[in-house]
């Protein structure tokens, strides 16, 4: 491989992680050019796949010594370009750090390496009656380390909270290669001092790289009831969600699909949802059996009062799983109804769902583009999918513009430009619309405390004049997403 001879650093990284796990040949590097946001591609200089904290630290030290930017990478399923390599920099992948280090049932915690797949935690815990709560739609392929970086959510975060509410402590490698434990690693619930763990979760790889993670695990609820309800339009479905939330009901999840999304999901998964409805809600209620029954009853009443056409429960566990599989594969299903689509992620107050969906529909109408909606309605986390055909000149740019305008609608309603996909490269320029210069400068004070030279994940999250001239490319589904193996949002 010619690069071995031309890149003198290859041998030094290979000495740390082993020859097989230091990658610098152009053909192999191609895999690492982008993450789930396929429109941006940068070829890194070297990719290293360390197996231990010590190897990570040695790689970081070497990179630091040569002032090479470092981009941490989990499974590369992120949708905001958080794992997009830096020009001339290294990528530290956690693909080999897949060990579960400790399962501590009495204390309800688990210690894992960052490359462990999200779903693997719950699989390991299932025989004991426990599980790990955050369930991003990509949970069959995404890693816990990536979840920490992005503060990943998921449908069931409505009741149980996000990654940040379930990570207790971590071992982190800092920019100078030093290793420290943050948060509550030693069995305590709290650690004195600033809540560094709370800041590292969701910091999108800008503060360091976590090499061990201590998570909280939960006992499985006694009972779960799933309801599927259809509505004439998103107005009634949105009203139903607002009514359920404002009534004080806390379901485990409430997801909404509009007519276009239903059409795509039915085509892709064969689930027998009716096609002649305007919207559907998929809801889980869980907890103590008696409470669950009553809550489900109350929610059904509110759905009917809001104009539900039909409310049904899955016949059995197999149908329940199929319904949820349909929901989690929804983004990929869009391929059935549109050659291309742009995934958006924004948040609004839950009381505004119906009106915001109308505003979004209007944006699509004005641009002559269809917009499908499939999202976490219970916490107001929208995922509008702007459908377009890249072969039609100008449509792609139009779709991007509409997607951008949707974020501005979210901001006008007092919301956020991202609820779970992160800022990354994709939304750095929108962050300046959500926060003031002073807000961003204050966040940079935090970054400088961890990484004074900005060696970790440069050109991400914070808006810069250079970045904000860039234009994102079209959203292209990942291969595993097309196959329906894992979903988005």
């Amino acid at each position, binding site marked *: 491989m010619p690069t071995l001879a031309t890149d003198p650093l290859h041998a030094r990284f290979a000495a740390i992680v082993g020859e097989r796990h230091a990658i610098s040949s152009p053909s192999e590097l191609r895999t690492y050019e982008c993450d789930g946001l396929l429109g941006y591609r940068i070829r890194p200089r070297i990719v290293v796949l360390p197996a231990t904290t010590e190897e990570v630290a040695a790689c970081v030290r070497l990179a630091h010594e040569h002032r090479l930017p470092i981009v941490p990478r989990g499974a590369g399923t992120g949708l905001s370009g958080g794992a997009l390599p830096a020009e001339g920099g290294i990528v530290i992948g956690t693909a080999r750090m897949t060990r579960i280090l400790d399962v501590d049932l009495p204390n309800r915690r688990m210690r894992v390496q960052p490359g462990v797949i999200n779903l693997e935690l719950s699989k390991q815990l299932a025989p004991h009656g426990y599980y790990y709560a955050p369930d991003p739609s990509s949970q069959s392929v995404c890693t816990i380390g990536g979840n920490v970086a992005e503060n990943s959510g998921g449908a069931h975060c409505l009741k149980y909270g996000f990654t940040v509410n379930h990570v207790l402590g971590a071992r982190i490698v800092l920019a100078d290669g030093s290793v420290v434990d943050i948060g509550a690693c030693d069995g305590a619930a709290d650690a004195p001092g600033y809540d560094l763990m709370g800041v590292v979760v969701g910091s999108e790889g800008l503060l360091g790289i976590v090499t061990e993670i201590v998570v909280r695990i939960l006992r499985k609820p006694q009972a779960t009831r799933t309801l599927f309800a259809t509505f004439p339009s998103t107005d009634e479905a949105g009203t139903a969600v607002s009514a359920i939330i404002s009534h*004080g009901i806390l379901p485990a999840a409430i997801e909404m699909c509009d007519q276009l999304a239903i059409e795509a999901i039915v085509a892709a998964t064969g689930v027998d949802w009716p096609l002649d409805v305007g919207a559907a809600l998929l809801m889980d209620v869980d907890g103590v059996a008696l409470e669950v029954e009553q809550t489900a009853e109350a929610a059904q009443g509110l759905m009917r009062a809001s104009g539900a056409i039909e409310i049904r429960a899955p016949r059995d566990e197999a149908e329940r799983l199929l319904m949820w599989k349909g929901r989690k594969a929804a983004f990929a299903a869009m391929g059935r109804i549109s050659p291309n689509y742009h995934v958006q992620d924004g948040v609004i107050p839950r009381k505004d769902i119906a009106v915001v969906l109308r505003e979004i529909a209007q944006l699509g109408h004005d641009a002559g583009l269809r917009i499908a909606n499939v999202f976490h309605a219970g916490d107001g986390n929208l995922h509008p999918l702007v459908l377009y055909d890249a072969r039609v000149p100008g449509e792609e740019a139009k779709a991007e513009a509409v997607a951008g305008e949707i974020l501005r609608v979210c901001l006008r309603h007092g*919301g956020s*430009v991202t609820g779970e996909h992160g800022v990354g490269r994709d939304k750095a320029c929108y*962050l300046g619309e959500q926060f003031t210069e002073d807000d*961003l400068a*204050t966040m940079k004070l935090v970054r400088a405390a961890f990484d004074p030279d900005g060696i970790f994940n440069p050109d991400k999250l914070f808006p810069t004049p250079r970045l904000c001239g860039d234009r994102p490319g079209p959203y292209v589904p990942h291969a595993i997403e097309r196959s329906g193996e894992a979903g988005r949002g």
Partner: protein
Amino acid sequence: MSDRLSVAGVTPGRVLAPADRIELASIVRDLAAGGRTFAFVGGGTDLELGNPPRALDAVIRTTALDRVIDYAPEDQTITVEAGMRLAALDTLLAQHEQLLPIDVGDRQNATVGGAIATNAFGARRHRYGSIKDLIVGIEIVRPDGVTAHGGGKVVKNVAGFDLPKLMVGSLGTLGGIASATLRVFPKPAVTRAVLARTAADGALLRAALDDPSLEPSAVAHHPAQGGVVLTFAGSAASVDGQIAHFAALAATHGDALEELDRDALRRCEAAEAAVRGSGAWRWTTSTSIARAQTLAQPAATALEVGYPTFGVVLASAADDPSLDAFAAQRDSATVFRALPARVRGTVDAWGEPPPAWRIMRALKHNFDPQGLCNPGRFVGGL
């Protein structure tokens, strides 16, 4: 008045009371420009916490900042100024059958900002989490007087670094809290508490916590009452069903349950508040369920309340001689919330700095390069 406002035993030169958030920022700006040291004080109910500040030119009293900025009951979020008393917030939320499930000793006086800055919690943390889990947005005044925001008003949000969490428990050493947005919760239809006369490390409690038929909203061990109090909240049928189930479980362990009425429950909670300000040693040891059983504590200790799933609060008389040795040897999970005057300044409230103290020091330096905000009160002299 200024005596009551002494911070970990240090009396401020003066007390300033801004009328609104704009004045709060301008006061901080002026103090910073003059190189003056200052502390933010809300209700003043936890002023024994931390080490004595190295200097304290002024206290900034935030209690006039008590406005509601935005309350969206149907969205279950509220944005209030930092000086709002928790009791006032409770009254407001009750109009919409909602509540903020954060347990604070003295709700009449304690403020929202103070609860955030001290990371206050109690028995309901078992279900609702701590204030870290409920805060979604914050407005701070940095030590240089610049106002900055983090998070937002919606319940789900990953835009930017999580400044709200950074401020929780930071004890005003990175700046002052001007306002915050918090998640609030529907008031359960029925709330009932039962006392099981069992030890905090007993088999009954472990069985209850492991039983999927039981989802207590609060769990606390009250030694003065002689047992563990489990609170159940929800619909009447569900609460009745859970208590019946727990009673049956208790019977298999040879234990009987006793229903606690509102007054009895309040007496349990008041026991912890009573020792505040008395000059006694008072400390918390953070723990997890199983680890609680092996905690080494001095013999003369009075356990005020135990939270079997996350920690214990203990106290001992000011003249208890065993405490000096305990203080010297305790592990990092133990924090002194109050120290007798005789050891203040010699016993470190926080103990050995945690492994990541270097990052904390850098944070403090970046936010407060002149070292003006509560200097020396926090972990490792920050």
